[in-house]
């Protein structure tokens, strides 16, 4: 084992799965499996003895589950990455695992290549969720933002820009606008073209549509 190899500890109650994963993982250059556990009981001793970089754990295990194991590992070794791989991607379980500090959650059915991708991602200090799990988590997260709207392009308009937009949308000519805003016609032209650029409008008609859409003027 070389010093820069990624050391992995496997936790799963299925011996043939552990053995197969060990073979598949160690066949990849740069990875080594430093230990195996079939339940939460043996995990902490193995973690202390083998100092893995990453613990790959099933969620449903006899005794302590993967979430509890994650909490225990991270309370003592906060730098270790814990990656869950499970046949159960129920949202509540995934959220519990994320709250416990898990670095990733992979659906077992998605296969070994995705598991390896997840290992690379979490070792690169990112979070990894299988796509279907990520979708469920994001949908759940977005529920708490019901009624919230994304920031609008024109949200940053100044009072004078807003007034200019109202006057343009009202069909006033540059000379009239200059009079109302006590500006020169040249300045109005400059502000107007700057406003069009800012709002990504190509014509006065688009400015009007924008102003109506954003309730800056009444249709």
């Amino acid at each position: 084992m070389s010093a820069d190899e990624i050391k992995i500890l496997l936790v799963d109650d299925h011996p043939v799965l552990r053995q197969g994963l060990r073979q598949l993982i160690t066949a990849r250059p740069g990875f080594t499996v430093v230990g195996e556990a079939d339940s939460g009981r043996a995990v902490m001793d193995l973690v202390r003895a083998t100092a893995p970089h990453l613990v790959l754990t099933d969620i449903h295990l006899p005794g302590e589950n993967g979430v509890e194991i994650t909490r225990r590992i991270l309370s003592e070794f906060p730098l270790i990455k814990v990656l869950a791989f499970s046949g159960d991607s129920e949202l509540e379980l995934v959220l519990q695992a994320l709250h416990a500090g898990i670095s990733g959650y992979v659906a077992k059915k998605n296969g070994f290549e995705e598991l390896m991708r997840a290992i690379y991602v979490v070792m690169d200090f990112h979070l990894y969720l299988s796509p279907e799990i990520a979708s469920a988590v994001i949908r759940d997260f977005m529920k708490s933002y019901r009624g919230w709207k994304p920031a609008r392009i024109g949200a940053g308009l100044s009072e004078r820009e807003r007034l200019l937009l109202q006057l343009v949308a009202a069909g006033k000519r540059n000379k009239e606008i200059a009079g109302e805003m006590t500006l020169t016609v040249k300045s109005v032209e400059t502000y107007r073209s700057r406003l069009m650029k800012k709002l990504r409008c190509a014509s006065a008609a688009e400015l009007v549509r924008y102003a109506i859409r954003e309730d800056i003027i009444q249709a």
Partner: protein
Amino acid sequence: MPLILLVDDDDCFAAALASVLEQAGYKLLRAGDGKAALRLYDPQTVSLVLTDLVMPEMEGMDLISRLRQQHPDVKIIAMSGGEINFAKTYLRAARLVGADYILEKPFSKAQLLMAIHQGLPPMPV
């Protein structure tokens, strides 16, 4: 070298199992459900079918019963896991519809190879 048709929709588990079996000297064909397995099964080349029971499209139980009907001599090992009572009941049912052997998950490499050895003629040394 005996060819085993491995049928499982859990791709990670299937990859792990395939790795163990290939290291033990078997050749593997893989299918993700019963329908794909029926398409791949060839009695001239496949020595044994190792199948999960709960799968999409066509379940293992259906696969076992169809294989048994169409190819009475086929050797089949059924495997299943999850909630203990469920797995036991399902595996018992698999026996009734035609599985020669059953393996309850989790199982070890030794248990797996023993079941396969029972279903296959001895490998040439």
